[in-house]
Protein backbone atom coordinates (compact mmCIF):
# COMPACT_ATOMS: atom_id res chain seq x y z
CA UNK A 1 0.00 0.00 0.00
CA UNK A 2 2.82 2.35 0.93
CA UNK A 3 4.68 1.63 -2.28
CA UNK A 4 1.49 2.32 -4.23
CA UNK A 5 1.11 5.76 -2.65
CA UNK A 6 4.69 6.59 -3.47
CA UNK A 7 4.26 5.47 -7.09
CA UNK A 8 1.24 7.76 -7.30
CA UNK A 9 3.23 10.70 -5.91
CA UNK A 10 6.16 10.06 -8.25
CA UNK A 11 3.81 9.83 -11.22
CA UNK A 12 2.24 13.19 -10.46
CA UNK A 13 5.67 14.77 -9.97
CA UNK A 14 6.66 13.43 -13.40
CA UNK A 15 3.58 14.72 -15.23
CA UNK A 16 3.30 17.98 -13.29
CA UNK A 17 5.58 20.19 -15.44
CA UNK A 18 3.78 19.12 -18.63
CA UNK A 19 0.33 19.47 -17.12
CA UNK A 20 1.08 22.89 -15.58
CA UNK A 21 2.46 24.32 -18.84
CA UNK A 22 -0.47 22.82 -20.71
CA UNK A 23 -3.06 24.18 -18.28
CA UNK A 24 -1.56 27.66 -18.32
CA UNK A 25 -0.73 28.15 -21.99
CA UNK A 26 -3.20 25.90 -23.78
CA UNK A 27 -6.24 25.12 -21.67
CA UNK A 28 -6.59 28.47 -19.91
CA UNK A 29 -6.70 30.51 -23.17
CA UNK A 30 -9.47 28.22 -24.45
CA UNK A 31 -11.53 28.79 -21.30
CA UNK A 32 -10.66 32.49 -21.36
CA UNK A 33 -11.89 32.79 -24.94
CA UNK A 34 -15.15 31.18 -23.92
CA UNK A 35 -15.53 33.74 -21.09
CA UNK A 36 -14.59 36.74 -23.27
CA UNK A 37 -17.27 35.72 -25.78
CA UNK A 38 -19.92 36.60 -23.17
CA UNK A 39 -18.54 40.12 -22.58
CA UNK A 40 -18.86 43.32 -24.57
CA UNK A 41 -15.17 43.83 -25.20
CA UNK A 42 -15.82 45.07 -28.69
CA UNK A 43 -13.66 48.17 -28.69
CA UNK A 44 -10.21 49.08 -27.34
CA UNK A 45 -11.59 49.44 -23.79
CA UNK A 46 -9.83 47.75 -20.91
CA UNK A 47 -10.94 44.38 -19.55
CA UNK A 48 -12.10 46.00 -16.28
CA UNK A 49 -14.58 48.26 -18.12
CA UNK A 50 -16.38 45.39 -19.83
CA UNK A 51 -19.68 43.89 -18.77
CA UNK A 52 -21.44 40.57 -19.18
CA UNK A 53 -23.77 40.64 -22.17
CA UNK A 54 -24.94 37.01 -22.25
CA UNK A 55 -25.40 35.51 -25.69
CA UNK A 56 -25.53 38.79 -27.60
CA UNK A 57 -22.19 38.17 -29.38
CA UNK A 58 -23.42 34.75 -30.44
CA UNK A 59 -26.67 36.27 -31.70
CA UNK A 60 -24.62 38.74 -33.76
CA UNK A 61 -22.34 36.04 -35.16
CA UNK A 62 -25.18 33.70 -36.08
CA UNK A 63 -27.14 36.45 -37.79
CA UNK A 64 -24.16 37.92 -39.62
CA UNK A 65 -24.18 37.28 -43.38
CA UNK A 66 -20.41 37.90 -43.58
CA UNK A 67 -19.78 35.17 -40.99
CA UNK A 68 -21.89 32.67 -42.89
CA UNK A 69 -20.18 33.56 -46.19
CA UNK A 70 -16.81 33.00 -44.54
CA UNK A 71 -18.15 29.77 -43.05
CA UNK A 72 -19.27 28.60 -46.50
CA UNK A 73 -15.81 29.36 -47.91
CA UNK A 74 -14.15 27.45 -45.06
CA UNK A 75 -16.38 24.47 -45.79
CA UNK A 76 -15.62 24.61 -49.52
CA UNK A 77 -11.90 24.88 -48.76
CA UNK A 78 -12.06 21.89 -46.41
CA UNK A 79 -14.04 19.72 -48.83
CA UNK A 80 -11.73 20.41 -51.79
CA UNK A 81 -8.63 20.01 -49.63
CA UNK A 82 -9.80 16.80 -47.94
CA UNK A 83 -11.13 15.05 -51.03
CA UNK A 84 -8.12 15.85 -53.21
CA UNK A 85 -5.52 14.94 -50.60
CA UNK A 86 -7.27 11.68 -49.64
CA UNK A 87 -7.60 10.56 -53.28
CA UNK A 88 -4.10 11.68 -54.32
CA UNK A 89 -2.59 10.25 -51.13
CA UNK A 90 -4.13 6.83 -51.77
CA UNK A 91 -3.19 6.88 -55.45
CA UNK A 92 0.47 7.82 -54.88
CA UNK A 93 0.86 5.48 -51.91
CA UNK A 94 -0.30 2.57 -54.09
CA UNK A 95 2.09 3.70 -56.85
CA UNK A 96 5.00 4.07 -54.44
CA UNK A 97 4.30 0.61 -53.07
CA UNK A 98 5.66 -0.74 -56.35
CA UNK A 99 9.43 -0.84 -56.86
CA UNK A 100 11.06 1.20 -59.63
CA UNK A 101 14.55 2.60 -60.25
CA UNK A 102 15.14 5.73 -58.15
CA UNK A 103 12.06 5.22 -55.97
CA UNK A 104 13.77 6.69 -52.89
CA UNK A 105 14.73 9.86 -54.72
CA UNK A 106 11.30 10.37 -56.28
CA UNK A 107 9.68 9.77 -52.88
CA UNK A 108 11.90 12.47 -51.38
CA UNK A 109 10.72 14.83 -54.14
CA UNK A 110 7.14 14.15 -53.09
CA UNK A 111 7.91 14.80 -49.42
CA UNK A 112 9.82 18.07 -49.79
CA UNK A 113 6.76 20.37 -50.11
CA UNK A 114 5.59 19.12 -46.70
CA UNK A 115 8.57 20.56 -44.83
CA UNK A 116 8.42 24.01 -46.43
CA UNK A 117 6.25 26.83 -45.13
CA UNK A 118 3.19 28.17 -46.93
CA UNK A 119 4.56 31.71 -47.11
CA UNK A 120 7.50 30.56 -49.24
CA UNK A 121 5.13 28.29 -51.19
CA UNK A 122 2.81 31.28 -51.68
CA UNK A 123 5.61 33.44 -53.06
CA UNK A 124 6.58 30.88 -55.68
CA UNK A 125 3.00 29.94 -56.68
CA UNK A 126 2.07 33.59 -57.14
CA UNK A 127 5.02 33.75 -59.52
CA UNK A 128 4.13 30.50 -61.35
CA UNK A 129 0.43 31.38 -61.63
CA UNK A 130 0.91 35.03 -62.57
CA UNK A 131 -1.95 35.46 -65.10
CA UNK A 132 -0.18 37.59 -67.70
CA UNK A 133 3.48 36.55 -67.41
CA UNK A 134 3.70 33.33 -65.38
CA UNK A 135 5.10 30.04 -66.75
CA UNK A 136 1.81 28.15 -66.24
CA UNK A 137 -0.18 30.50 -68.43
CA UNK A 138 2.71 30.47 -70.91
CA UNK A 139 1.35 27.04 -71.91
CA UNK A 140 -2.03 28.65 -72.66
CA UNK A 141 -0.34 31.48 -74.56
CA UNK A 142 1.42 28.86 -76.68
CA UNK A 143 -2.03 27.90 -77.99
CA UNK A 144 -3.06 31.52 -78.39
CA UNK A 145 -5.30 31.51 -75.31
CA UNK A 146 -4.96 33.86 -72.34
CA UNK A 147 -5.38 31.30 -69.54
CA UNK A 148 -7.30 31.61 -66.25
CA UNK A 149 -6.57 34.24 -63.60
CA UNK A 150 -5.93 31.51 -60.99
CA UNK A 151 -5.30 33.16 -57.62
CA UNK A 152 -6.54 36.51 -58.94
CA UNK A 153 -9.89 35.10 -60.00
CA UNK A 154 -12.80 35.50 -57.55
CA UNK A 155 -14.10 32.10 -58.65
CA UNK A 156 -10.82 30.15 -58.72
CA UNK A 157 -8.80 31.68 -55.87
CA UNK A 158 -10.29 29.56 -53.09
CA UNK A 159 -10.21 26.20 -54.94
CA UNK A 160 -6.64 26.93 -56.09
CA UNK A 161 -5.57 27.73 -52.54
CA UNK A 162 -7.15 24.49 -51.29
CA UNK A 163 -5.41 22.45 -54.00
CA UNK A 164 -2.03 24.06 -53.36
CA UNK A 165 -2.53 23.45 -49.63
CA UNK A 166 -3.27 19.80 -50.42
CA UNK A 167 -0.21 19.60 -52.68
CA UNK A 168 1.96 20.89 -49.84
CA UNK A 169 0.56 18.46 -47.26
CA UNK A 170 0.32 15.41 -49.55
CA UNK A 171 3.40 13.72 -48.04
CA UNK A 172 1.61 13.13 -44.75
CA UNK A 173 -1.15 11.13 -46.44
CA UNK A 174 1.23 9.20 -48.68
CA UNK A 175 3.45 8.17 -45.78
CA UNK A 176 0.52 7.13 -43.60
CA UNK A 177 -1.14 5.04 -46.30
CA UNK A 178 2.20 3.52 -47.38
CA UNK A 179 2.77 2.37 -43.80
CA UNK A 180 -0.69 0.77 -43.79
CA UNK A 181 -0.09 -0.87 -47.19
CA UNK A 182 3.14 -2.41 -45.97
CA UNK A 183 1.23 -4.04 -43.12
CA UNK A 184 -0.98 -5.99 -45.54
CA UNK A 185 0.04 -9.68 -45.36
CA UNK A 186 1.81 -10.78 -48.54
CA UNK A 187 -0.36 -13.92 -48.92
CA UNK A 188 -3.47 -11.77 -49.53
CA UNK A 189 -1.79 -10.46 -52.68
CA UNK A 190 -0.77 -13.99 -53.65
CA UNK A 191 -4.37 -15.19 -53.41
CA UNK A 192 -5.42 -12.27 -55.61
CA UNK A 193 -2.68 -13.18 -58.09
CA UNK A 194 -3.77 -16.82 -58.23
CA UNK A 195 -7.37 -15.77 -58.85
CA UNK A 196 -6.13 -13.48 -61.63
CA UNK A 197 -7.51 -10.30 -60.08
CA UNK A 198 -7.15 -7.05 -62.05
CA UNK A 199 -5.64 -3.92 -60.47
CA UNK A 200 -9.07 -2.47 -59.57
CA UNK A 201 -10.33 -5.79 -58.16
CA UNK A 202 -7.24 -5.93 -55.99
CA UNK A 203 -7.81 -2.35 -54.86
CA UNK A 204 -11.42 -3.04 -53.96
CA UNK A 205 -11.14 -6.47 -52.39
CA UNK A 206 -7.64 -6.60 -50.93
CA UNK A 207 -6.15 -3.16 -50.45
CA UNK A 208 -9.09 -0.98 -49.35
CA UNK A 209 -10.60 -3.38 -46.77
CA UNK A 210 -7.16 -3.90 -45.17
CA UNK A 211 -6.32 -0.23 -44.83
CA UNK A 212 -9.82 1.05 -43.97
CA UNK A 213 -9.08 1.64 -40.25
CA UNK A 214 -5.97 3.64 -41.16
CA UNK A 215 -7.93 5.60 -43.78
CA UNK A 216 -10.59 6.55 -41.23
CA UNK A 217 -7.93 7.77 -38.81
CA UNK A 218 -6.23 9.66 -41.59
CA UNK A 219 -9.51 11.21 -42.70
CA UNK A 220 -10.09 12.52 -39.17
CA UNK A 221 -6.61 14.07 -39.03
CA UNK A 222 -6.97 15.49 -42.55
CA UNK A 223 -10.32 17.12 -41.74
CA UNK A 224 -8.83 18.71 -38.62
CA UNK A 225 -5.85 19.92 -40.65
CA UNK A 226 -8.14 21.34 -43.33
CA UNK A 227 -9.42 23.86 -40.79
CA UNK A 228 -5.89 25.03 -40.01
CA UNK A 229 -5.82 27.11 -43.16
CA UNK A 230 -4.89 30.63 -42.05
CA UNK A 231 -1.29 30.52 -43.31
CA UNK A 232 -2.27 28.84 -46.58
CA UNK A 233 -4.82 31.53 -47.38
CA UNK A 234 -2.61 34.41 -46.23
CA UNK A 235 0.34 33.06 -48.21
CA UNK A 236 -1.63 32.58 -51.43
CA UNK A 237 -4.53 35.01 -51.65
CA UNK A 238 -4.69 37.11 -48.49
CA UNK A 239 -8.45 36.39 -48.55
CA UNK A 240 -8.94 38.02 -51.93
CA UNK A 241 -9.64 39.03 -54.54
CA UNK A 242 -12.22 41.08 -52.63
CA UNK A 243 -13.48 38.69 -49.99
CA UNK A 244 -13.70 35.70 -52.35
CA UNK A 245 -11.32 33.53 -50.31
CA UNK A 246 -11.90 35.06 -46.87
CA UNK A 247 -12.37 32.01 -44.64
CA UNK A 248 -13.45 31.96 -40.97
CA UNK A 249 -9.90 32.20 -39.60
CA UNK A 250 -9.34 35.43 -41.55
CA UNK A 251 -12.71 36.75 -40.41
CA UNK A 252 -11.72 36.10 -36.77
CA UNK A 253 -8.39 37.83 -37.33
CA UNK A 254 -9.96 40.90 -38.94
CA UNK A 255 -12.73 41.24 -36.37
CA UNK A 256 -10.23 41.05 -33.52
CA UNK A 257 -7.12 42.77 -34.79
CA UNK A 258 -8.48 45.22 -37.36
CA UNK A 259 -11.82 46.17 -35.76
CA UNK A 260 -10.87 45.41 -32.10
CA UNK A 261 -14.08 43.37 -31.62
CA UNK A 262 -12.42 40.87 -29.31
CA UNK A 263 -15.58 39.42 -27.79
CA UNK A 264 -17.30 39.02 -31.14
CA UNK A 265 -14.20 37.35 -32.60
CA UNK A 266 -13.99 35.04 -29.57
CA UNK A 267 -17.60 34.02 -30.13
CA UNK A 268 -16.76 33.28 -33.77
CA UNK A 269 -13.86 31.14 -32.55
CA UNK A 270 -16.15 29.20 -30.19
CA UNK A 271 -18.78 28.61 -32.89
CA UNK A 272 -16.10 27.44 -35.31
CA UNK A 273 -14.52 25.14 -32.68
CA UNK A 274 -17.91 23.62 -31.90
CA UNK A 275 -18.40 22.95 -35.59
CA UNK A 276 -15.01 21.21 -35.81
CA UNK A 277 -15.84 19.10 -32.76
CA UNK A 278 -19.17 18.17 -34.39
CA UNK A 279 -17.34 17.10 -37.57
CA UNK A 280 -15.10 14.89 -35.46
CA UNK A 281 -18.07 13.32 -33.70
CA UNK A 282 -19.69 12.56 -37.06
CA UNK A 283 -16.48 11.01 -38.36
CA UNK A 284 -15.97 8.82 -35.31
CA UNK A 285 -19.64 7.82 -35.54
CA UNK A 286 -19.14 6.82 -39.16
CA UNK A 287 -16.06 4.90 -38.17
CA UNK A 288 -17.70 2.88 -35.42
CA UNK A 289 -20.73 2.06 -37.57
CA UNK A 290 -18.34 0.87 -40.29
CA UNK A 291 -16.52 -1.32 -37.77
CA UNK A 292 -19.79 -2.85 -36.49
CA UNK A 293 -21.04 -3.56 -39.98
Amino acid at each position, binding site marked *: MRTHGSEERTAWL*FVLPFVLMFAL*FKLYPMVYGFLVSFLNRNSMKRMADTTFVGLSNYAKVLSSPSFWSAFGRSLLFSVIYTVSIMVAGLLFAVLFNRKFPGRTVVRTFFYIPYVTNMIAVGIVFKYLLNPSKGPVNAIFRLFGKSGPLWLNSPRLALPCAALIGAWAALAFNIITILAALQDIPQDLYEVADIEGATFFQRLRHVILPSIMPALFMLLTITVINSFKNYTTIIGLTGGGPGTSSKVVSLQIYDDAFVYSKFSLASAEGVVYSLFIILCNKLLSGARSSWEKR
Partner: protein
Amino acid sequence: MGKEMKRTGNVAFAAVMWILGLLMVYPFVMMVAIGFRPAGLAYKPLFEPVAPILTNYKQVLFHKNFGDWYRNTVLTVSITIILRLLVTLSASYAFSRLRFRGSKVLMAVLMATLMIPGETTMVPRYLFFKQIHLLDTIWVIILPEVSEVFYLMLLTEFFRSVPEDFIEAAKIDGAGHLRILLTIFIPLSGPAIATAILFSFINIWNNFLDPYLFINTIGHQLITPALKFFQERGGANVPVQLAGATLAIFPVIVLFIFTQRYFVAGVSSSGIKG
Protein backbone atom coordinates in the same frame (compact mmCIF):
# COMPACT_ATOMS: atom_id res chain seq x y z
CA MET B 1 6.62 -11.54 -75.59
CA GLY B 2 4.81 -11.20 -72.27
CA LYS B 3 8.09 -10.59 -70.48
CA GLU B 4 9.03 -7.95 -73.01
CA MET B 5 5.72 -6.17 -72.44
CA LYS B 6 6.20 -6.27 -68.69
CA ARG B 7 9.65 -4.70 -69.09
CA THR B 8 8.28 -1.89 -71.25
CA GLY B 9 5.53 -1.41 -68.68
CA ASN B 10 8.07 -1.10 -65.88
CA VAL B 11 10.12 1.45 -67.80
CA ALA B 12 7.02 3.48 -68.59
CA PHE B 13 5.93 3.32 -64.96
CA ALA B 14 9.31 4.54 -63.73
CA ALA B 15 9.31 7.33 -66.32
CA VAL B 16 5.84 8.53 -65.27
CA MET B 17 6.84 8.50 -61.58
CA TRP B 18 10.00 10.46 -62.31
CA ILE B 19 8.09 13.07 -64.31
CA LEU B 20 5.56 13.46 -61.50
CA GLY B 21 8.38 13.69 -58.95
CA LEU B 22 10.09 16.41 -60.94
CA LEU B 23 6.77 18.27 -61.18
CA MET B 24 6.54 18.15 -57.37
CA VAL B 25 9.90 19.90 -56.98
CA TYR B 26 9.49 22.18 -60.02
CA PRO B 27 8.25 25.10 -57.86
CA PHE B 28 11.37 24.84 -55.69
CA VAL B 29 13.66 24.67 -58.70
CA MET B 30 12.03 27.87 -59.98
CA MET B 31 12.31 29.46 -56.53
CA VAL B 32 16.08 28.95 -56.43
CA ALA B 33 16.69 29.68 -60.12
CA ILE B 34 14.65 32.86 -60.54
CA GLY B 35 16.34 34.19 -57.40
CA PHE B 36 19.47 34.47 -59.55
CA ARG B 37 17.80 36.63 -62.22
CA PRO B 38 17.44 40.37 -62.61
CA ALA B 39 13.86 41.61 -62.06
CA GLY B 40 13.37 42.48 -65.73
CA LEU B 41 14.06 38.90 -66.85
CA ALA B 42 12.15 37.09 -64.07
CA TYR B 43 9.45 35.80 -66.42
CA LYS B 44 11.69 34.68 -69.27
CA PRO B 45 11.41 30.88 -69.73
CA LEU B 46 13.83 28.86 -67.61
CA PHE B 47 15.56 27.28 -70.62
CA GLU B 48 16.49 30.69 -72.09
CA PRO B 49 19.94 31.37 -70.64
CA VAL B 50 20.23 34.47 -68.46
CA ALA B 51 23.54 35.46 -66.88
CA PRO B 52 22.99 34.71 -63.16
CA ILE B 53 23.33 37.55 -60.69
CA LEU B 54 23.85 37.42 -56.92
CA THR B 55 22.29 40.78 -56.04
CA ASN B 56 18.89 39.35 -55.00
CA TYR B 57 20.39 36.88 -52.55
CA LYS B 58 22.73 39.60 -51.30
CA GLN B 59 19.83 42.00 -50.80
CA VAL B 60 18.14 39.46 -48.51
CA LEU B 61 21.32 38.38 -46.70
CA PHE B 62 22.39 41.98 -46.07
CA HIS B 63 18.96 43.21 -44.97
CA LYS B 64 19.59 44.87 -41.64
CA ASN B 65 17.28 42.44 -39.79
CA PHE B 66 18.15 39.21 -41.58
CA GLY B 67 20.65 38.18 -38.91
CA ASP B 68 18.08 38.94 -36.19
CA TRP B 69 15.45 36.76 -37.87
CA TYR B 70 17.77 33.80 -38.22
CA ARG B 71 19.15 34.18 -34.69
CA ASN B 72 15.66 34.54 -33.16
CA THR B 73 14.45 31.48 -35.04
CA VAL B 74 17.43 29.32 -34.10
CA LEU B 75 17.14 30.41 -30.44
CA THR B 76 13.38 29.75 -30.36
CA VAL B 77 13.79 26.34 -31.98
CA SER B 78 16.65 25.26 -29.68
CA ILE B 79 15.12 26.45 -26.40
CA THR B 80 11.73 24.98 -27.28
CA ILE B 81 13.24 21.60 -28.15
CA ILE B 82 15.20 21.41 -24.88
CA LEU B 83 12.26 22.44 -22.66
CA ARG B 84 9.82 20.29 -24.63
CA LEU B 85 11.99 17.19 -24.28
CA LEU B 86 12.55 17.71 -20.54
CA VAL B 87 8.86 18.10 -19.79
CA THR B 88 7.59 15.53 -22.29
CA LEU B 89 10.06 12.73 -21.52
CA SER B 90 9.20 12.77 -17.83
CA ALA B 91 5.44 12.95 -18.47
CA SER B 92 5.68 10.14 -21.05
CA TYR B 93 7.46 7.93 -18.51
CA ALA B 94 4.64 8.45 -16.02
CA PHE B 95 1.90 7.82 -18.60
CA SER B 96 3.55 4.67 -19.94
CA ARG B 97 5.06 3.10 -16.81
CA LEU B 98 3.44 4.40 -13.63
CA ARG B 99 -0.05 3.80 -12.39
CA PHE B 100 -1.83 6.82 -11.00
CA ARG B 101 -5.43 7.83 -10.44
CA GLY B 102 -6.85 10.03 -13.17
CA SER B 103 -4.21 9.17 -15.77
CA LYS B 104 -6.79 8.01 -18.31
CA VAL B 105 -9.00 11.08 -17.82
CA LEU B 106 -5.98 13.36 -18.04
CA MET B 107 -4.82 11.76 -21.30
CA ALA B 108 -8.36 12.02 -22.72
CA VAL B 109 -8.53 15.76 -21.90
CA LEU B 110 -5.11 16.35 -23.44
CA MET B 111 -6.04 14.49 -26.61
CA ALA B 112 -9.41 16.19 -26.93
CA THR B 113 -7.70 19.58 -27.26
CA LEU B 114 -5.76 18.32 -30.29
CA MET B 115 -8.71 18.95 -32.58
CA ILE B 116 -9.05 22.64 -31.68
CA PRO B 117 -6.92 24.55 -34.21
CA GLY B 118 -4.84 27.53 -33.06
CA GLU B 119 -6.85 29.67 -35.49
CA THR B 120 -9.95 29.52 -33.31
CA THR B 121 -8.16 30.54 -30.10
CA MET B 122 -5.98 33.32 -31.46
CA VAL B 123 -8.00 36.08 -29.78
CA PRO B 124 -7.93 34.80 -26.18
CA ARG B 125 -4.31 33.78 -26.59
CA TYR B 126 -3.42 37.28 -27.74
CA LEU B 127 -5.34 38.91 -24.87
CA PHE B 128 -3.84 36.57 -22.27
CA PHE B 129 -0.24 36.88 -23.50
CA LYS B 130 -0.65 40.65 -23.58
CA GLN B 131 -1.91 40.61 -20.00
CA ILE B 132 1.14 38.66 -18.78
CA HIS B 133 3.55 40.86 -20.83
CA LEU B 134 4.77 38.07 -23.06
CA LEU B 135 4.06 39.76 -26.40
CA ASP B 136 6.93 40.72 -28.68
CA THR B 137 9.43 38.28 -27.13
CA ILE B 138 10.46 34.82 -28.32
CA TRP B 139 8.99 33.44 -25.06
CA VAL B 140 5.48 34.02 -26.39
CA ILE B 141 6.30 31.29 -28.91
CA ILE B 142 8.44 29.06 -26.69
CA LEU B 143 6.33 28.71 -23.55
CA PRO B 144 3.06 27.60 -25.24
CA GLU B 145 5.04 25.17 -27.44
CA VAL B 146 6.59 23.33 -24.46
CA SER B 147 3.60 21.09 -23.77
CA GLU B 148 2.46 19.73 -27.13
CA VAL B 149 0.27 16.63 -26.89
CA PHE B 150 1.56 15.20 -30.20
CA TYR B 151 5.05 14.69 -28.71
CA LEU B 152 3.59 13.28 -25.50
CA MET B 153 1.76 10.65 -27.56
CA LEU B 154 4.81 9.91 -29.68
CA LEU B 155 7.12 9.29 -26.71
CA THR B 156 4.51 7.56 -24.53
CA GLU B 157 3.85 5.13 -27.36
CA PHE B 158 7.57 4.46 -27.72
CA PHE B 159 8.14 4.00 -23.97
CA ARG B 160 5.33 1.42 -23.87
CA SER B 161 7.37 -0.73 -26.24
CA VAL B 162 10.39 -0.94 -23.90
CA PRO B 163 10.51 -4.53 -22.51
CA GLU B 164 9.60 -4.88 -18.84
CA ASP B 165 12.73 -7.03 -18.16
CA PHE B 166 15.01 -4.01 -18.49
CA ILE B 167 13.17 -2.23 -15.71
CA GLU B 168 12.87 -5.25 -13.42
CA ALA B 169 16.66 -5.65 -13.44
CA ALA B 170 17.16 -2.00 -12.58
CA LYS B 171 14.55 -2.13 -9.81
CA ILE B 172 16.33 -5.08 -8.21
CA ASP B 173 19.46 -2.95 -8.20
CA GLY B 174 17.44 -0.40 -6.22
CA ALA B 175 17.18 2.24 -8.94
CA GLY B 176 14.49 4.89 -8.52
CA HIS B 177 12.16 6.02 -11.34
CA LEU B 178 14.26 9.03 -12.21
CA ARG B 179 17.33 6.84 -12.62
CA ILE B 180 15.39 4.30 -14.69
CA LEU B 181 14.19 7.11 -16.96
CA LEU B 182 17.65 8.62 -17.33
CA THR B 183 19.74 5.46 -17.64
CA ILE B 184 17.38 3.05 -19.40
CA PHE B 185 14.54 4.82 -21.22
CA ILE B 186 16.33 7.84 -22.62
CA PRO B 187 19.32 5.90 -24.02
CA LEU B 188 16.90 3.40 -25.61
CA SER B 189 14.74 6.13 -27.17
CA GLY B 190 17.25 7.55 -29.63
CA PRO B 191 15.04 7.14 -32.71
CA ALA B 192 11.90 8.50 -31.00
CA ILE B 193 13.80 11.47 -29.59
CA ALA B 194 15.34 12.13 -33.01
CA THR B 195 11.84 12.11 -34.52
CA ALA B 196 10.61 14.54 -31.85
CA ILE B 197 13.55 16.89 -32.45
CA LEU B 198 13.10 16.78 -36.22
CA PHE B 199 9.36 17.48 -36.05
CA SER B 200 9.89 20.26 -33.53
CA PHE B 201 12.51 21.87 -35.74
CA ILE B 202 10.33 21.74 -38.86
CA ASN B 203 7.15 22.92 -37.14
CA ILE B 204 8.65 25.80 -35.21
CA TRP B 205 10.79 26.94 -38.12
CA ASN B 206 7.71 27.04 -40.38
CA ASN B 207 5.36 28.49 -37.76
CA PHE B 208 3.68 31.57 -39.17
CA LEU B 209 0.45 32.33 -37.32
CA ASP B 210 1.77 32.61 -33.76
CA PRO B 211 4.79 34.84 -34.33
CA TYR B 212 2.77 36.88 -36.85
CA LEU B 213 0.12 37.49 -34.20
CA PHE B 214 2.26 37.93 -31.12
CA ILE B 215 5.50 39.57 -32.30
CA ASN B 216 5.33 43.09 -33.60
CA THR B 217 8.83 44.57 -33.61
CA ILE B 218 10.47 43.52 -36.86
CA GLY B 219 13.85 42.92 -35.19
CA HIS B 220 12.19 40.44 -32.81
CA GLN B 221 10.46 38.49 -35.57
CA LEU B 222 11.11 34.90 -36.69
CA ILE B 223 12.09 33.95 -40.23
CA THR B 224 8.75 32.74 -41.68
CA PRO B 225 6.60 35.77 -40.74
CA ALA B 226 9.59 37.99 -41.57
CA LEU B 227 9.43 36.58 -45.09
CA LYS B 228 5.86 37.86 -45.33
CA PHE B 229 6.94 41.26 -44.01
CA PHE B 230 9.80 41.34 -46.48
CA GLN B 231 7.42 40.49 -49.32
CA GLU B 232 4.85 43.15 -48.39
CA ARG B 233 6.52 46.06 -46.69
CA GLY B 234 10.13 45.43 -47.66
CA GLY B 235 9.24 46.49 -51.19
CA ALA B 236 11.03 43.47 -52.61
CA ASN B 237 10.57 42.60 -56.28
CA VAL B 238 9.71 39.05 -57.36
CA PRO B 239 13.26 37.62 -57.71
CA VAL B 240 14.23 39.09 -54.32
CA GLN B 241 11.12 37.52 -52.76
CA LEU B 242 12.03 34.18 -54.31
CA ALA B 243 15.61 34.51 -53.05
CA GLY B 244 14.20 35.26 -49.58
CA ALA B 245 11.90 32.22 -49.76
CA THR B 246 14.87 30.04 -50.78
CA LEU B 247 16.98 31.25 -47.86
CA ALA B 248 14.06 30.79 -45.42
CA ILE B 249 13.38 27.15 -46.34
CA PHE B 250 16.97 26.07 -47.06
CA PRO B 251 17.90 24.80 -43.55
CA VAL B 252 14.70 22.77 -43.20
CA ILE B 253 15.07 21.07 -46.57
CA VAL B 254 18.73 20.19 -45.95
CA LEU B 255 17.90 18.82 -42.51
CA PHE B 256 14.98 16.87 -43.96
CA ILE B 257 16.98 15.24 -46.73
CA PHE B 258 19.43 13.80 -44.22
CA THR B 259 16.90 12.71 -41.60
CA GLN B 260 14.01 11.47 -43.73
CA ARG B 261 13.95 8.12 -41.95
CA TYR B 262 12.89 9.68 -38.63
CA PHE B 263 10.40 11.89 -40.39
CA VAL B 264 8.70 8.93 -42.04
CA ALA B 265 8.70 7.01 -38.74
CA GLY B 266 7.09 9.97 -36.98
CA VAL B 267 4.34 10.50 -39.56
CA SER B 268 3.51 6.79 -39.74
CA SER B 269 3.10 6.46 -35.99
CA SER B 270 1.08 9.66 -35.63
CA GLY B 271 -1.19 8.80 -38.52
CA ILE B 272 -2.21 5.30 -37.65
CA LYS B 273 -2.29 5.30 -33.90
CA GLY B 274 -3.74 8.78 -33.88
